[in-house]
């Protein structure tokens, strides 16, 4: 059994009086330590699948188990706790808090860790920033950083609680090639050196090459899957 088990998942969105099916009986397994790239045309359900795996959305039917936890059965409160402990999220547009420094942004998830004092939080955040190579920019605000640097701060934020699973939604989609390569190298390093399981949505075949496995989605179903 894989670290992530998506079983016969269906997801339908309601738009006014219309029902829009996004995922249609999708089944997928991801092993611990894998680096999986999800590809597919716009509207194929890549981000929806990522959201379901990360527990920020619920399937209409089917089940999703992550490390033997059926996330569809968790309450909103338990799901929030589960996310804070088990998943690191990376977004295309970084989604950093503009009024917080890099250090403070990375500290955010640690506010939810019980019993951790301010000094420990600072040390952990600094360590995460060192891993992504931005230790020297800890006091910079997002507006003072380049796009690539912002995404690296976002990665530091994603790994600071040491989750086993990292979900990245087009992490290089807003970056130039050079910055994108740096981010991809960093993700590959997190996967190889820190044994993080990574599921990455991307449109970019070049980015997808960094993954161990490509999963193609089209109209809510898997079309191909390869190594």
């Amino acid at each position, binding site marked *: 059994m894989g670290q992530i088990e998506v079983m016969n998942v269906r997801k339908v969105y309601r738009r006014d009086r219309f029902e829009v099916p996004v995922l249609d009986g999708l089944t997928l397994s991801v092993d611990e330590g894998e680096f999986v790239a999800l590809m597919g045309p716009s509207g194929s359900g890549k981000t929806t699948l990522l959201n379901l795996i990360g527990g920020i959305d619920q399937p209409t039917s089917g089940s999703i188990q992550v490390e033997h936890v059926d996330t569809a059965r968790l309450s909103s409160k338990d799901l*929030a706790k589960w996310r*804070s402990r088990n998943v690191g999220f990376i977004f295309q547009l970084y989604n950093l808090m503009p009024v917080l420094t890099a250090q403070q942004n990375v500290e955010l998830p640690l506010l939810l860790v019980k019993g951790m004092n301010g000094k420990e939080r600072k040390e952990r955040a600094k360590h995460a920033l060192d891993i992504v190579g931005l230790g020297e920019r800890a006091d910079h605000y997002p507006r003072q950083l380049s796009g690539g640097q912002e995404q690296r701060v976002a990665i530091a934020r994603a790994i600071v609680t040491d989750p086993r699973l990292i979900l990245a939604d087009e992490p290089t989609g807003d970056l130039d090639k050079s910055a994108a390569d740096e981010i991809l190298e960093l993700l590959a390093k997190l996967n190889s050196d820190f044994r993080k399981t990574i599921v990455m949505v991307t449109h970019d075949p070049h980015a997808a090459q960094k993954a161990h496995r490509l999963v193609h989605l089209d109209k809510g179903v898997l079309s191909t899957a390869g190594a």
Partner: protein
Amino acid sequence: MALLGMVWTNLMRNKLRTILTWLSVFVALFLFVLLHGITDTLTESTKVGSERRLVTRNKISLVFPLPLSQYEKIKSMPGVAAVTWSNWFGGTDPVKPNDFYARFAVDGKTYFPMYASDAYIVQASPANGATSPSGVDPKLAAFFADRTACVVGEKLFLSHKWKLGQTIHLTGTIYPGAWPFVIRAVYRSKVRAFGEETMFFHWDYLYERSNRQAQVGIYTFSPADPSQAAAIGKRVDAMFENSEAATHTETERAFSAGFVSMWGNIPFVIRVIGLAVAFSIFLVAAVTMMMAIRERTNEFAVLKTLGFEDGAIFAVVLLEAGVLTLSAGLAGSLLAKFLLEKSGLPLPGFSTMIVHWETVALGLGLAVLMGLVSGILPAWQASRLRIVDALRKVG
């Protein structure tokens, strides 16, 4: 950085908006407490005077005087322990005509003993061999030795930077002419409602300089048995019923309250205006809070993605509103109290402006309510946000 740090950081993200919102709440609560302070002052003024003392005035109106001949008749009435009289002088400062404070001509030898439990002398000119009448504070010896002498309240004395022995000049309004007075003593009140912004001088001085035209404004007397006050008051009025100056007698407190009743419904109107101001500003604050929260929809979605629970998001937003309105409310309320009480802003006819702490607390309560109501909807919206909708991205 803890959650409170986040609250502060968020408030500071748009300093101009925060400052303007803060100022609007500040002004609202300042005006609310200021206006309530006026009604506090009016209410407090109804408590001036004792239930144990009686005041007799002309039955037609306070404007009409009473003859001095009534003094002996009241004094000799069985059950009356002590009587004094006083007269409103009016007058203006020729240099500063708007410098208002109450000025009364009093019969010193009976007036000051009557109010010994309400005020006492804190400063006085040297006696230089003079003595006070029997039963009167010896410190008033210099006052009794000088026909033009006056006694002033300590607050008035300090605010005008007067000195003992200094001559002040007034222009008479009811009693025309130039009126010099020499400050011979300063009193301090024992009860706040008595105030410290009044000037008292010899009724004899007024009588003589007005060519013996001055009469009595009111008689104040204390019954030997306070429980008989009402009966004695009726007997006094009955005694003068068919005289040239019929009287109306009531307790001193009721007499003071009569002044407030002249304001009619104004206290109610003032309260309504205060609430209307606060309510309109509250709407502004609520709209501003909602706008501020809407701008951060994406950030709340990210926080929730990171694992922040709905309750934490709710608390952060509500705290933001609460910190803003409570701090502005506290500052506005305290400033209103300070300004009214300390700066000597005058309310004509009432010597001492008062803002009760209960009014400040009411202002703070209103600020808290403002924070709760303006923050609760945005807080609820932020906490109920669906992450996927807020991130607005469907792949």
